[in-house]
């Protein structure tokens, strides 16, 4: 565990939740990953991964392509089958057979690199689908909530548009609203800005930054080093399927100890 993570983030919104005022060490663990390994046939993508994420913590995962960052993230809501080890989210061990994945996933929002909006539905229907289908809200309540979420990501006027009519940045903001509609405790971002034109990256980061301020627990796989540094409580550097180094943004970006980290940062910064 990082030592410097004991204090709340400097940029945390004073109006944010109670949790953000509790020192990190005293907060409860929402994600506990133990001895995680994942292989595709003979290809060992992840091994010996141990990570704990505290409530309200923002963890950024950086590292070279092919390091296993996205695979690791996808293990956290079990979109990938785990080869061995344990992934415990909100106290539910996803690797155990009897665990109801559908229920656990309702509390974990995920945002994908390629948005994965449902093209046959309007923006509003995209956001409303899960709460209505899972009996979380009546159609009316879901609509009101979806409209509020679209307002929050700045897309209220696009409610009746189809995804195909939106720009990349708008699509990704809708995807975030769709994930938030299930009122998740945790948000996973899988290279959420990698498929965007540069001028649209900012609008998406702004929405994520806003979530961080409000104390959302988040794990982000990102190539935006500046953003990781700004918004994360803790940064994990992954390479070759293992976590090579972790620490506060200051520790990783200013005083990297591992030669692989140094090498990587010298190339991207």
């Amino acid at each position, binding site marked *: 565990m990082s030592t410097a993570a004991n204090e709340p983030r400097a940029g945390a919104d004073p109006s944010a939740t109670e949790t953000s005022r509790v020192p990190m060490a005293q907060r409860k663990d929402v994600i506990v990953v133990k001895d995680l390994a994942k292989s595709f046939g003979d290809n060992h993508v992840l091994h010996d991964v141990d990570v704990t994420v505290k409530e309200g913590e923002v963890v950024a995962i950086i590292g070279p392509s092919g390091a296993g960052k996205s695979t690791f993230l996808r293990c956290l809501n079990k*979109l990938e089958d785990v080869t061995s080890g344990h992934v415990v989210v909100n106290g539910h061990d996803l690797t155990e057979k009897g665990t109801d994945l559908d229920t656990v996933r309702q509390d974990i*929002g995920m945002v*994908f690199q390629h948005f994965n909006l*449902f*093209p046959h539905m309007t923006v509003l229907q995209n956001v409303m*689908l899960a709460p209505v289908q899972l009996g979380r809200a009546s159609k009316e309540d879901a609509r009101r909530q979806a409209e509020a979420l679209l307002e929050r990501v700045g897309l209220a006027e696009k409610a009746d548009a189809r995804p195909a009519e939106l720009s990349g940045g708008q699509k990704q903001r809708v995807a975030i609203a769709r*994930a938030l509609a299930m009122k998740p405790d945790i948000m996973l971002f899988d290279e959420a800005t990698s498929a965007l034109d540069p001028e649209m990256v900012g609008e998406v980061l702004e929405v994520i930054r806003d979530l961080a301020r409000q104390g959302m627990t988040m794990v982000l796989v990102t190539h935006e080093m500046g953003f990781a540094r700004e918004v994360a409580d803790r940064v994990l550097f992954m390479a070759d399927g293992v976590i090579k180094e972790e620490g506060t943004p200051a520790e990783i970006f200013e005083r990297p100890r591992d030669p692989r980290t140094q090498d990587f940062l010298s190339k991207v910064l």
Partner: protein
Amino acid sequence: MRHLLDRQRRAPAVLALVVLLLTLAAPFARAATPAPNPNNKPAEGKHYVVGTDTTFAPFEFRAANGDLVGIDMDLLHAIAQDQGFTVEVRSLGFDAAVQALQSRQVDAVMAGMSITEPRKQVFDFSDAYFDSGVQFAAPKTSSVNSLADLKGKRVAVKTGTAGADYADSVKTQYGFSTVAFGQTADMVNDVSTGNSAAYIDDFPVVAYSIQQGAPMKLIGEKAPAGSYGMAVNKGTDPELIAAFNQGLANIRANGEYDRVLAKYLGEQGTTQRTGFFTLLADSFPTLMKGLALTIAAAALSILFAMVLGVVFGFFKVSGNLALSWLATAYVAIFRGTPVLVQVFFFYFGIPAVTGITLTAFTAGVITLSLNAGAYMTEIVRGGIQGVDRGQMEAARSLGLPYMKAMNKVVLPQAIKIMTPSFINQFIITLKDTSLLAVIGLAELTYMGQQIIARNFRSFEMWLIIGVIYFIVIGLLTIASNKVDKRFNK
């Protein structure tokens, strides 16, 4: 008798083994004996299904109104009436009728069938009701006037008939070659178009067609072949044979028999060759009857195939190894064999083993459903797999269970991908119904064959039938595209 020659078809190859086996039992077989008393009615009140040929004028053929008529049919009905039994006639084609008899789909066959020794090993025959023969014919305008004129030319014959056997036996002597066809109409067409110089068929058939206005002339002498009888499976229906023989004796005695023969073979005025629109008007009601059956068979097959396609398509993408293997095997079998073989298998093969008889319609719909279902399975699989994996992942990440994610997110997009292929398959299945003519389903193509067998107007008739298919398929395409546009925006 005036009619000389005969139609003696070889027993189908499948019979060979049965014949061999039954030869051993032959000494013990009973001979059917006609009842001596004219008032004896051994089959009174019974009901029989009788198989017959499709296009064998003047023995059996469709009249302009679509009814099955001819010497066989009129004699059969006269005998049934005399003997107080009822019959249901199934017009299947000669080989098909014989196979149907063996697989007990029908009780008897009356189809200008020659009484031969090999056949007697397998079937019980009635008394001969007609003595026949075979004869060559050539176009009226042709320079061929005798068998000697056929030297170096080609003669059309009908597969497995006494005519074919006779032609083979004299072709070296006269120096001609032969080409075999499945149906009289095809054989005559080959001669009409000049591909063959002459054809050979049973004399009454040739005589009847010339009487009906076919521009042909008889060549050479009639060669005697044999006599026609009604057949039942050996030892199965002695009372039907007895009743038939008794009824035949009775109608011969009361003059009905002669009236029937005179009706089809007597001197009559040559039929006038009608104009195209008269032909169209005359044949239209019959063709529409056929079209109704074509559409019914296609609609049911498409419906069942959709259900099969969805079920097996889901099996394929289910990730369950056993289900996916089952679906793969199903597709492999029905995509890997010709539809025609499948039709024969379900119509003749299954009943021969199980004893469950199927009507041509049922067997046809089963075959086309299973066949199209295999293709639709692949369409469904392709459609589902054609939807980006991220769609399923996004839906599951929200906590939607698999079936909900499938129904609400993946399927609506998959159906859009599948629709053009579905429309294509609908059209293929509609066209495939024409293959069901081979098992005697009276659909559009079959009706066309029937009309041509009567009037020999193949160019105009196939043109008319082609246009009818074209219009129906055009309408189906337009309707499908409208539905596609409406639901898959």
